[in-house]
């Protein structure tokens, strides 16, 4: 749903509104019958739509069409990448049990890696990040070079989902390449906001998903080098390069491609505009709440930070109280914490960056996107003083109890 005018939606990193072109492409394809694996005319038409989408997406992300494997989204692509690479490498070289990854990975990567450690004999090596949330390259190098022949894969997200910190992917690739170790990157948050060139990056696999860049939820892709072998998770008809089975969703894939086309096509202007909005937001926040701390890399640019994320710690406040008070006024943002209906846990990402429990709980993530306006930002800034005052009072009550 496109956020209505009564809502100031600042949670684009969770999901961003679909672009009209994607909605149109999806609606058009939903009305068309045809299984892309069928041999008749309807099947061929569906296949053509899927392949045109694949070509467009490949082109926009610097990959070859055969390297784009469609799947259900970021979680599946990450699972396929890391489990597939681990199993496949281990079958050839049983000594390769180590997986080296960063301590700030999303649960969609962290949890499959942890599962491999618990059930499949993987030895996981989590490497640290600095206070800005950037991998410490020397530590990652040391982890790999301690015994390179035992590493099955290295995986590092392209841009962090909580602070937007962009990772030194080329350094990571250079370290792993020297030892012929494949590298995967979860680029879900980066896609649409920074240029992604799969071929130039030297990566072996890269995760992207449609709904973070104006497409629908439920479709994404693992971009995976042709020569890289990976063991599939889903067995069946072998539709996607024998790596992923299941009838391909023509409508979702067509919408994904339409979104990529529009979003990457306008990326430069959108990013410049959003960076401006972010500056207005951050400056306004600090003006209203002088002790607020804007986290992450202050420097804009595709080697530094995503243009759309502002992660702010409000000392002496609880993020969830502020979220609720903003929400009551139609302003939507995120605490960035993992909460499965039970007790919200402080983010493992913030803890890895060296924030303590209290700071981790006292933070909010505002994330902008293609529909964001100055009016949205100004609504946040207008509401902030009262929200902040109440949240601080609530926090004092709590610590005093």
């Amino acid at each position: 749903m496109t956020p209505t005018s009564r809502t100031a939606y600042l949670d684009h990193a969770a999901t961003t509104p679909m672009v009209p072109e994607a909605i149109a492409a999806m609606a058009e394809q939903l009305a068309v019958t045809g299984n892309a694996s069928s041999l008749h005319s309807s099947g061929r038409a569906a296949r053509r739509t899927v392949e045109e989408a694949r070509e467009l997406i490949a082109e926009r992300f610097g990959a070859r069409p055969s390297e784009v494997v469609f799947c259900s989204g970021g979680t599946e692509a990450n699972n396929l990448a890391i489990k597939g690479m681990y199993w496949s490498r281990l079958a050839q070289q049983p000594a390769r049990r180590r997986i080296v990854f960063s301590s700030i990975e999303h649960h969609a990567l962290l949890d499959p890696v942890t599962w491999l450690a618990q059930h499949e004999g993987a030895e996981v090596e989590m490497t640290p990040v600095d206070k800005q949330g950037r991998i410490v390259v020397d530590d990652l190098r040391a982890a790999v070079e301690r015994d390179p022949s035992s590493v099955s894969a290295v995986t590092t997200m392209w841009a962090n989902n909580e602070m937007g910190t962009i990772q030194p992917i080329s350094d990571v690739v250079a370290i792993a390449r020297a030892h012929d170790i494949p590298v995967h990157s979860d680029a879900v948050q980066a896609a649409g906001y920074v240029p992604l060139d799969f071929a130039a990056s030297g990566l072996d696999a890269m995760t992207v998903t449609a709904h973070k860049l104006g497409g629908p939820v439920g479709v994404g892709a693992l971009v995976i080098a042709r020569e890289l072998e990976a063991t599939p998770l889903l067995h069946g008809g072998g539709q996607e390069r024998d790596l992923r089975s299941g009838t391909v969703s023509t409508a979702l894939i067509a919408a994904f491609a339409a979104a990529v086309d529009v979003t990457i096509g306008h990326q430069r202007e959108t990013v410049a505009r959003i960076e401006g909005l972010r500056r207005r937001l951050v400056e306004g926040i600090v003006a209203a709440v002088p002790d607020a701390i804007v986290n992450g890399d202050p420097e804009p640019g595709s080697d530094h930070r995503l243009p759309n994320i502002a992660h702010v710690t409000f000392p002496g406040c609880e993020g969830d109280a502020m979220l609720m008070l903003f929400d009551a006024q139609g302003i939507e943002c995120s605490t960035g914490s993992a909460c499965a209906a039970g007790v919200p846990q402080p983010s493992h990402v913030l803890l890895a960056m060296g924030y303590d429990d209290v700071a981790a709980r006292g933070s909010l993530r505002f994330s902008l996107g293609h529909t964001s306006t100055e009016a949205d930002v100004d609504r946040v800034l207008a509401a902030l003083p009262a929200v902040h005052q109440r949240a601080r009072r609530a926090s004092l009550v709590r610590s005093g109890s």
Partner: protein
Amino acid sequence: MRVVAAMSGGVDSAVAAARAVDAGHDVTGVHLALSRNPRSYRSGARGCCSIEDAGDARRAADALGIPFYVWDMSEEFADHVVDDFIAEYTAGRTPNPCLRCNEKIKFAAVLDRALALGFDAVATGHYAQLETAPDGTIEMHRAIDHGKDQSYVLGVLTQQQLAHSLFPLGDTTKDVVRVEAAARGIQVAQKPDSHDICFIPDGDNAGWLGEKLGPKPGTVVDEHGAVLREHDGAYAFTIGQRRGLRLGVPADDGKPRFVLDIEPVSGTVTVGPREALLVDALECIKPLWCGTAPTETLDCTVQLRAHGDEHRARVSVTGEVVHVELIDPASGIAPGQACVIYDGTRVVGSATISATSRVAVS
């Protein structure tokens, strides 16, 4: 008013929230996450602490069209309710964790947070009634449905707390609440009532305490001090308990025996006949008065456990100590339990039992 409706996921709190909406309040549903490691599914007779319960609360809020949030109160709950429960048992007393939860969590931590965040009141699904007396005192009365009445576990609330509390179900019977829930499309209309202590997974209090406290061997003795058996921990016993004593040898008179006393330091558990359980005088401490403290001896009734009988009593107050003379003797009364004092249906106050005096056996 801006109202926080505490929603456990059960039928009572859902209907209470619905009635607060009907009354024209601006209501926000809040589910309290009290457990640090919530279970996925509800099990047994507990109805508030699993992820499934949080989901039920969320769906009830959807049905009412109100915003819904989960508030993490697990730290406060662990400190004030769970740890207190363990400490009280360790000291040989019998605490009521629901009462403690109302006193320290629902009408303290939650209410304080709500007020600080700009709300005016907290509504819950408790069965009790509030009335404002001509002098401005907020009186709490028993619910219409005496079988469900929860004024006992609310007796610890202060005037300040009551001034910001709403109990929309006090004038209704449970049957009517269930019918109303169904009519409102609330899916939990037929969810069973919860009975057990919510943080003890299978209702096995003694087993749970045993895990927390480890073995603390002691003896079970009769009234004359003769050792009847050994035990692994006095926390497995409560005063008035008859079942599960596993004494082996029958009493001299062949009648059943009951736990009369628990001595926490030595772990000695004394058993004896039913008559020896009867007490006719109580001394209570830490009184909380719903209004002003009585200045002269009060002919009233007292309730000594949740859903327990009313006992006619004569109550007098000396400073912070409440003396209760029971006209109808009570049995199975343990230090640590709350004594709630009633004048008719009105709660006069509440205090914690610190000592009991046995009826002289003639």
